Each structure stands twice: as structure tokens, then as C-alpha cells.
């Protein structure tokens, strides 16, 4: 599904990603953990096509196709989805209208007609029920005045609507209380399938109790310094990151 080879990225001449290698197969869930400032969010945004970062060496392949030259929207059309750590507030555009526009623009890019209104409504109802989102919520302005938890739930709602091939969840657990975490994790688990892949970026092991990963990677100082199975997450929870940092120096 996704293959990242020796990826380097920098912002204003400061190198943040220093040679990332990562392979994610269809049907897998990968967790990327690491201390603050290790480059986790940068990796997520670079995959999604944030133009603020200068990508130097390396490549990102989605189903064998190089994403390098593609705009964020083209990547979305190919099936990349990023659940933002800090979703942006957009007053004046309702959640429903935003989703209609997003879905129909993606369909247009694929040469499809707009989704019929009744089908759209049905889908919105279905997915919002899955995430226990109140109908009234959908007519509110996108993220405006939403609590941290509401914003994250809304991100997963968008993911459910867009049905991406590759979803990257950037710190989706931050700002969620335990009930919201359960609802969001349930939603994500329902979206797991053999044809898609999920990358979960998190600071804590907590989320991984609900979304159980196949592989866990530790990112430190712009590189993946350790990879393992879900047990690695437990080890990190116990020992912290310092022992890995020392390893990296060696």
C-alpha cells in the first residue's frame, strides 16, 4: 500500500525527517510513537502533501505510484486521508456542506457525477450514527467552537465519509476523554479492512489498547530508531523513550 524510502524533509533549511523507511501493507495498522519534536506530525503532513515542507531525497509511493509531485488534493483523490492533530476552524461552512463539497470534488476528479442527494444524506446519517454524532452538530460551522473531543470525532467522521485507502491519524487521542476515545476507536476499527491501511501516530500507549496495531515504530530525531510488534508500545510505556535515544546516539 505505502512505501516510504529514505525520506528527507526540511522546513526553512532545518531538516526534520532524516531518512525514513517505512512499508505498510494493505490490511495493516501501524503505530508511530516517539517523543515530542521527533518528526511524527511532519511525517504525517509530508505524506498528505503539505507544501510548507521541502522534500529532499527519498520517495513516497502509494500502491507503487510516486506521490512526490502531487498536490494535497490529488493525494486525497488517490485515497490519502490525514486526521489532523489540530483541525482548523472554518466559520461559515457547515460540516455537511464541507463533506458534500469534499466528496463531490473527489468524485469529479475521478470523472464521476455528483453523489445523488439522497445517497449523500443516507451516508451522512449512517456514519454520524456510527460515531454517535448529533444531527444538529452537522449543521454547525466546521470545527468552530467544537471541543477538542468533538473536533477529533469530526475528523473520524470525515474519514468514514471519505473511505480512504490510507488513513493517518495524528494524535487523534489527545483531547479525548475515555468515553470519546472508545467511540472514536470503535469507529476506526469498523473502518479497518483488508484493502486499506491505517497509520496511528500517538504519544501514549492508551489509544493502542483500543486500536491494536500490527506494528509499532519509534521515531526519534527524524528517523525510525526501532520497530516491533504491539509489545514494543508496552515497553515504551514502561521505560519511556530515553533508552532509545541513547541507542540512537550509539
Amino acid at each position: 500500500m505505502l512505501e516510504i524510502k529514505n525520506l528527507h524533509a526540511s522546513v526553512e533549511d532545518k531538516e526534520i525527517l532524516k531518512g525514513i523507511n517505512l512499508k505498510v501493507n494493505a490490511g495493516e495498522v501501524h503505530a508511530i510513537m516517539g517523543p515530542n519534536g521527533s518528526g511524527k506530525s511532519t511525517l504525517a503532513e509530508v505524506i498528505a502533501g503539505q507544501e510548507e515542507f521541502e522534500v529532499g531525497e527519498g520517495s513516497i509511493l502509494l500502491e507503487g505510484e510516486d506521490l512526490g509531485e502531487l498536490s494535497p488534493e490529488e493525494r486525497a483523490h488517490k485515497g490519502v486521508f490525514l486526521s489532523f492533530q489540530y483541525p482548523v476552524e472554518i466559520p461559515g461552512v457547515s460540516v455537511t456542506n464541507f463533506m458534500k463539497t469534499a466528496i463531490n470534488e473527489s468524485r469529479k476528479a475521478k470523472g464521476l457525477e455528483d453523489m445523488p442527494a439522497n445517497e449523500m444524506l443516507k451516508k451522512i446519517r449512517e456514519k454520524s450514527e456510527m460515531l454517535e454524532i448529533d444531527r444538529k452538530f452537522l449543521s454547525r460551522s466546521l470545527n468552530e467552537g467544537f471541543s477538542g473531543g468533538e473536533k477529533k470525532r469530526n475528523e473520524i467522521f470525515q474519514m468514514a465519509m471519505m473511505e480512504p485507502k490510507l488513513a493517518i491519524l495524528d494524535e487523534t487521542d489527545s483531547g479525548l476523554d475515555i468515553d470519546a476515545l472508545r467511540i472514536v476507536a470503535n469507529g476506526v476499527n469498523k473502518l479497518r479492512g483488508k484493502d486499506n491501511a491505517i497509520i496511528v501516530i500517538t504519544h501514549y500507549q492508551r489509544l493502542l489498547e483500543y486500536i491494536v496495531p500490527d506494528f509499532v515504530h519509534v521515531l526519534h530525531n527524524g528517523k525510525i530508531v526501532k520497530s516491533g510488534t504491539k509489545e514494543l508500545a508496552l515497553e515504551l510505556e514502561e521505560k519511556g523513550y530515553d533508552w532509545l535515544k541513547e541507542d540512537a546516539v550509539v
Partner: protein
Amino acid sequence: MDLKEKLVSSFFAFEDGMDLDHPVHEERSHAIKNFEAKGFPTKKEEAWKYTSLKGLQKVDFSIFPKHETSLEYKDVKKYFLHEIDTYKIVFVDGVYSSYLSETTHDGVDVCLMSSAFSKPMYQPIIEVYFNKAASKDESLTSLNTAFCKEGAYIYIPKNKMPKKPIQILHLATGNEAALMLQPRNLIVAEDNAEVQIIERHQSLTGNEVFTNSVTEIFAGKDAIINYYKVQNDESTASLVDNTYISQKDNSVVRVHTFSLGGKLIRNNLNFYQNGERIDSTLKGVTILGDKQHVDHHTLVHHAQPNCESHQDYKGIFGDSSTGVFNGKIIVDKIAQKTDAFQQNNNILLSDRSTINSKPQLEIFADDVKCSHGCTIGQLDEEALFYLRSRGIPKKEAKALLMYAFANNVLESVRIPELKARINKIIANKLGVRMGFDL
């Protein structure tokens, strides 16, 4: 001969065709003297620092159109809000077009200034209201008063409301190489009356047009007036709009100004609160490109206690366009408990576009709430990336953000068809198709 000289000397010819004994004529005579003394405003005056009329004064404008022109409805239909039934007062090159209009005298008067001036039955109204709100000092208003002859006359008696909204449409055919128009409108809503008005100036060709318009609006006690100005003219059409609004107790007047096209637009929007518990609302959306220029000069004069005013102007400036927002609020000493709010937000889309924004608050009372805010920025890159990451292309994402930016001005438009039309004009301007109306 420059434009000022031409206008002053034309006044004598103009006078010839008028009834010199009519009381209005005295106003005209005073006004031409004031204009002659002051001339066109220059950039040396603080109020005209950012807007120059110099270029317009070099154009050889016809002051009285030589041709009489008729237009087919089908050719100008698109400039009407034809989706709904309305009364219409239509002028072609400054001359009333009965063919394109639909006036009424059924309980309310929706007709012409020329009738109001000439027919004795309207004399009492003219005496009470005409030229009572308009400035006698400001030179362009004086110029309009001097040549006042035609325009829309709308009179809504006590407790009345016209059956439908009223459209005032000024069309310029381009049959003159360059044409100057000076419409004069009078709108009176007596106590507890209500009216909705849409005003538009539209040139049909690329020939130069310069409109110097004066509108006086009077709201009686408890009256409600919603006034919409649609400014989406050709790039050779310039407009100076002088609007004077006088409000009595408990009245509500809302003016929305949509400045989406034209060469040079100057809106002088003046509110005078002559009563208590008055609500004045001034909202504007300005979206410009090319070398267009729009200058909003607002004035709200709080002269009595317990009144409110709300100003919200949004501007988006692309290419080499320039904008001005000057919002003046005066709170008299006796106007305690005034609640005056003013906001002006701007987005600059290019390095060459300019906005000059200036709040001007003169507060003489000590128990008031006055707030003002102004922002000038660019489109939020984070928000743009967020939208694009959801598959919305850059151009559409930018348009969506601009829509969102203008939305809270649009949402208070009370005629849904008008709102849809403005949305369409904006979408066309931004070159996108939106899947929904905001």
C-alpha cells in the same frame, strides 16, 4: 472645459426647463452655488485622501442624454432579480422607462421623483422630507441637489407594507460616448411601516459612465427598512453613492452593500439616529480585482440615548485593486447607553492590492459601549491545506474560504433569491462552481 465648469454652465440651461417658482428650485440654486464654491473634492481633503476623482473630471461627459433609448426586457432581464415578483422603478440613461417598470399607488406610492416634484398631492411630503437629511455642505451632494429632477420616490404610509420588494434599477445604454447620471431618490417609511428595496446601477457597454447618486431615507417610529445595494458594474462605470438615513424611535434600518464590480465606487453611507432604541445596521461585502477601487465611508451619528449600531464590512482584494474603509461613529453627550459595534476584516490576495482601514470614533458620552476591530491578512494557509487534504482543489478551497469569510454578512440578507444571486455573482467572480449556497 473641465467637468466642473461644464456642470456649472449647464445649470442655466437645466434651469430653463424647470419651474422656477417651485420651492425645490430654491434648494437647487443654493446647491449649485455650494458646488461652484467647493468643486469636486480632492485628495487634500481628509475624507478623500485615498480616492481620486481627478481621472473622471478629464472625461467629456454628456450631462443630458441626447438620445432616447428603448430596451427590450429580454436583453436586460438578467440585471433584475427576476426570480421573484417585485415592484420596479427603472431608468434608462437617467430617463424613466415605463415599459420596464412596475409602479403602484395601491396603499403605498412606488413611483417617480419627477411626479412627486410636479404633482400638488405630493407637495406636503416633499416639503417635510426633501433635502432634509442630505448634506447641504458636501459638494457632490450639492451637485446632485442642483440637478435633481428624476429618481425613485417611495412613500409607505403609517402601518403599511408594500406587497412585494421594490427594485430600483439604473441602466446606462452606452449610446452616449460618456454619460453622467445624477439620480435622486426619496424613501419615506412612516411609523410602523415596512419596506424592502434593492438598488442596482448597471452599464450595458464599455462606454464611460459616472453616476453621482443621492438617496434620502426616512424611517418613522417602529419602521423597518431593509435596503440592498448591488454594485457589480462594468469596469468603465464609476459610482458615488450618497445615502442619508434619518431614523426615529424604535426603527430598524439595515443597509447591505455588495461591491463586486465597477471602476471606482465611493459609498457615503450616513445614519442619523433621531430617537431612542434605534437599531442601525451597515453591512458590506467587497470583492475586487483588476484595478478596481471601492471606498466605504460610513457615519453613524448617535444623537439620542439607548440606541444600537452594527457595522460589519468584509473585503477581499486581488490584483491591483484598492479598498478604503472609513467608519466614523459620533456619540453625542446625551446619547448614553449607546451600543456601537464596528468591524472591518480584509484579505489581500496579491502583493499589489491595498486596503486603507480607519475607525474614527468621537465619543462625548461616558456610559456607552463602543467597540471596533479591524484585521488585514491573507488567506489562512493552514485552513487551505486542511480543505485540500480533503480533496478540494486549491482554487475551490480558496473560494470556499472566501465564501466563509463573507458569510456572516450574507446570512442577514432576508430575500433568499437575492442571497442566491449574490452567491452566484461571487462564485462567477471567483471562477468556481459551488455545490451549495451559503
